[in-house]
């Protein structure tokens, strides 16, 4: 076996009763946008069918990422995907790393000019192609393990769950899927690991929102097969990629060249298992990927059923921190169990969402302090301040929103002030885009960014002064300070001046 496909993304134009969305075109547009680090945007109105299978192939003496593109009708996706392949192999702005393989039907003879040119080029540069028959063999694993995200059906089921602005929620859903594809196809650079974290946590955020929305509307989410399948596939493949492919490549690359990744804290759990890949041949790794992925899928399917049951049966307040904590803890514990069982070694930390568990604990702890130390606030305007890191994603803001919902009643406007560094512009844009669609219309959430440098103390200091100058002591619900010291310290020191003794109640560090 030289090929292992682990996830299939299928999309078609989807028409709902009151809304027609080109699911396929929009998904591709967002994917192109994110995968290029927001360097490309294009309209994809004419793209109405898409089938991509993502996975791994043996290339030389390595296991590489691959995307199989299935030609469906006369769409122009191929040229766009060729552009993405350029991003994956050559362009240094993009985090992508993959090989593009085109699944073709046999031609008797190429005789049309617009086909002739690509045909010539395909032979000249020997682009990779695969026949439908072979491709169908490769996708047997996907089919038998239910690893297909049928985005059109996913969207239809979601539209049946939500009662609010369907178009906005579907827009966010497509962005989450595009983010997942970007993360799964990225390399092993430090930021690629961060991308996997934000994608994983964004999928959990999407699921959590669907879970609560279905419970509120008394809809049984466990019956929504396409929703569960898509969520489970995305979570599974990100776990597999993070805990098999990354440590394998890390060992190869670090051994050969050294790498900044080895000094990344988020990579700590991977360092614990990296030696398991010593002397592993590419085929051994592909076998590990195959076994592990199937195992994770089965476990996550079971977990999702359990989560639905628990959340609906335990009288938890929807929109509360308790629901979020329950879901996140279940997911983290499951990953830990899977890893311990597969590697026969307990894993101390978890890379994809483990840090978030600490964040919840901190916020929970802060809730009780807040309750003890201050009167319950009723404010029209509530402010939240965050310093962005490369892990910033909608789930983090969601926790802060839940915190405000629990402690501050009847507020009308929530302003989220984010200190964005040049390294976190991607996180800021993605988070804002996904949140805008998912947040309830009943409360106005305004996200305002500020650019702050990470290497210049004096400039950081005056920008921090400007940011904190917008904070009202009474309106501030919480400030979450994390990341680089040149950013974090001036904000803390300026907050100290305006908050006085409230600093310990309202400011937290991660």
């Amino acid at each position, binding site marked *: 076996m030289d090929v292992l496909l682990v996830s299939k993304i299928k999309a078609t134009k989807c028409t709902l009763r009151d809304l027609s969305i080109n699911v396929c075109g929009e998904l591709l547009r967002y994917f192109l946008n994110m995968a290029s680090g927001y360097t490309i945007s294009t309209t994809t109105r004419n793209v109405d069918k898409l089938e991509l299978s993502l996975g791994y192939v043996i290339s030389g003496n390595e296991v590489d990422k691959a995307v199989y593109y299935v030609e469906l009708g006369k769409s122009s996706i191929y040229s766009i995907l060729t552009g993405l392949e350029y991003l994956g192999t*050559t362009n240094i702005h993009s985090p992508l790393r993959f090989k593009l393989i085109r699944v073709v039907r046999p031609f008797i003879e190429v005789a049309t000019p617009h086909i002739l040119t690509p045909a010539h080029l395909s032979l000249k540069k020997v682009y990779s192609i695969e026949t439908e028959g072979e491709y169908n063999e490769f996708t047997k694993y996907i089919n038998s393990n239910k690893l297909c995200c049928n985005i059109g059906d996913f969207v239809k089921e979601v539209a049946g769950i939500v009662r609010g602005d369907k178009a906005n929620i579907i827009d966010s859903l497509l962005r989450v899927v595009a983010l997942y594809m970007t993360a799964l196809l990225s390399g092993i650079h430090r930021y690629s690991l961060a991308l996997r974290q934000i994608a994983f946590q964004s999928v959990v955020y999407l699921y959590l929102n669907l879970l609560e929305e279905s419970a509120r509307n008394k809809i049984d989410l466990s019956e929504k097969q396409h929703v569960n399948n898509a969520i489970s596939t995305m979570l599974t493949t990100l776990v597999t990629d993070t805990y098999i492919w990354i440590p394998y490549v890390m060992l190869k690359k670090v051994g050969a060249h050294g790498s900044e990744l080895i000094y990344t804290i988020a990579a700590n759990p991977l360092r614990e298992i990296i030696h398991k890949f010593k002397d592993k041949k590419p085929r051994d790794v592909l076998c590990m990927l195959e076994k592990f992925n199937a195992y994770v899928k089965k476990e996550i399917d079971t977990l999702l059923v359990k989560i639905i049951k628990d959340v609906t049966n335990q009288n938890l307040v929807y929109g509360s921190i308790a629901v979020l904590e329950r879901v996140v803890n279940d997911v983290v514990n499951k990953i830990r169990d899977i890893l311990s069982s597969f590697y026969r070694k307990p894993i101390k930390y978890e890379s994809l969402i483990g840090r978030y568990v600490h964040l919840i604990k901190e916020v929970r702890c802060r809730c009780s302090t807040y309750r003890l130390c201050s009167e319950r606030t009723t404010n029209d305007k509530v402010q939240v301040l965050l310093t962005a890191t490369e892990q910033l994603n909608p789930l983090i803001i969601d926790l802060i929103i839940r915190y405000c919902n629990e402690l501050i009643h009847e507020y009308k406007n929530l302003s989220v002030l984010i200190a964005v560094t040049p390294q976190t512009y991607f996180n800021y844009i993605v988070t804002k885009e996904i949140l805008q669609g998912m947040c309830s219309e009943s409360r106005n959430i305004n996200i305002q960014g500020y650019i702050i440098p990470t290497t210049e103390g004096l400039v950081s200091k005056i920008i921090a002064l400007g940011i904190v100058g917008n904070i009202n002591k009474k309106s501030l619900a919480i400030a979450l300070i994390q990341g680089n010291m040149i950013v974090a310290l001036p904000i803390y020191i300026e907050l100290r001046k305006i908050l006085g003794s409230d600093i310990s109640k309202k400011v937290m560090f991660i």
Partner: protein
Amino acid sequence: MFRGIIELGGVLNYQSNKNLITIDYVIPSVNVFLLDQVYTLSDAVREYDLLLLCRLNDEPIIILGECVSPDNIENEIAKWFRDTRVWHTPIVWIKDKGTQLHTPLNLNISTTHLRSLKQCLDEQIQAYSNIYNIGIELFNFLYYIVLYLTPNAACRLVDILLNSSIEASKTIETTNINSYIINRKLLRVYIEFIHSLSEVLKIYRKMYSEDRYIIENERLFKDRLIEELNKLKKLEKSFQVDTNYRLKELFDSLSKHISNRRVLLLIAPQITYPLPSEIRKSIEESGVRIPFTISYRLERMFIEALIRIIKKIKELEPCSLKTYLLAINWRGTLEDLKEVYRRSVQGLEVISTPNELSKLLGSEFFDYVIILVLQDYGKREFINVLNMVDSFIKKNNKRGVLIVLPEIAYVPQSGSRLVTAVTYIRKEVLSRLLSRALIYEMPLQGED
């Protein structure tokens, strides 16, 4: 025929001649750094000699420029290959007649068509060099946004950069900023310059948002363009004074506090985890000897830089100097890190818990406390230390300073390439990194 008209005095020259490219403004030596490589960044991914803000028959456009050096054609050709790895706005190659650079995609013009460009470029290099003395990172980011991102994403980010600069300029007037580094007026002009340049680049890159630049009236648009360019040129002139960081004044101030005093130096270094033994073994099996316990960067660069800083403090002749490593809650593999510091820095003692720090502050007498952060540290632990030291200083009516050195600094350099990135190289730490450090004098304002 291509004709270049340089109008850098601020008044635009509207010509009726069609196919005329008017160059309105030149930004010299545009260095673009990859944003996702902050930890290991050592070089710009690409340096373009100039960014030309032009109008093609009055429509704003931006063009990158490369002045071809006839003496180093190999290097110029290498740039062509490097350019295949990024996408950007068109590059015009400016070369003397007879320069042997013949490659495809040749959008090039002869320097004879741009007679005044050379002089103008020299002036701009001087002006921007002075501006960059104050700070570069936001410019790097602005260039990255403008050259590479989609108009939509670029517009959103430039808008928040504009917002940040507006808020910052409000506070410069009203807040006490550490004064000995650079004067307040110049800092205000610097922020205004970033703001103004962002506005100008927004127009030339055609980023329109929130109805701010709806070009319903062409005349109004031209007026706005002229207004913004004039403002930019006016601000540029403010930087003709010395904009260097007054490090001498910083050392004078330190000397005043340190000389003949009892000084406590607390060091909070970047936490770097040792290589896992399996990886170490694997690397060594491939024939590469690793002489470092933790890493080359830590043991060769950071520690040598730290030794240099301690030496500098000693030169300021304190009555006594006690140096402590803040190894608070360092457990497990971080014990190795502690050992590396202890072994490498003479006279270094270790504080492992907040209690130990508390005891130290309570039992010994210090006149001046220096907290030195190298790159990054655990926020919670550090804030605790900062608050303890600040309380001690306030309670005992003493003084101190907090210095946070960045991971990397972007600094101006001489020559036509204006910017370089430096990190913890021995002599650079005092001359370059310190000029980009975050410095707070203690006691801090606000609560204990």
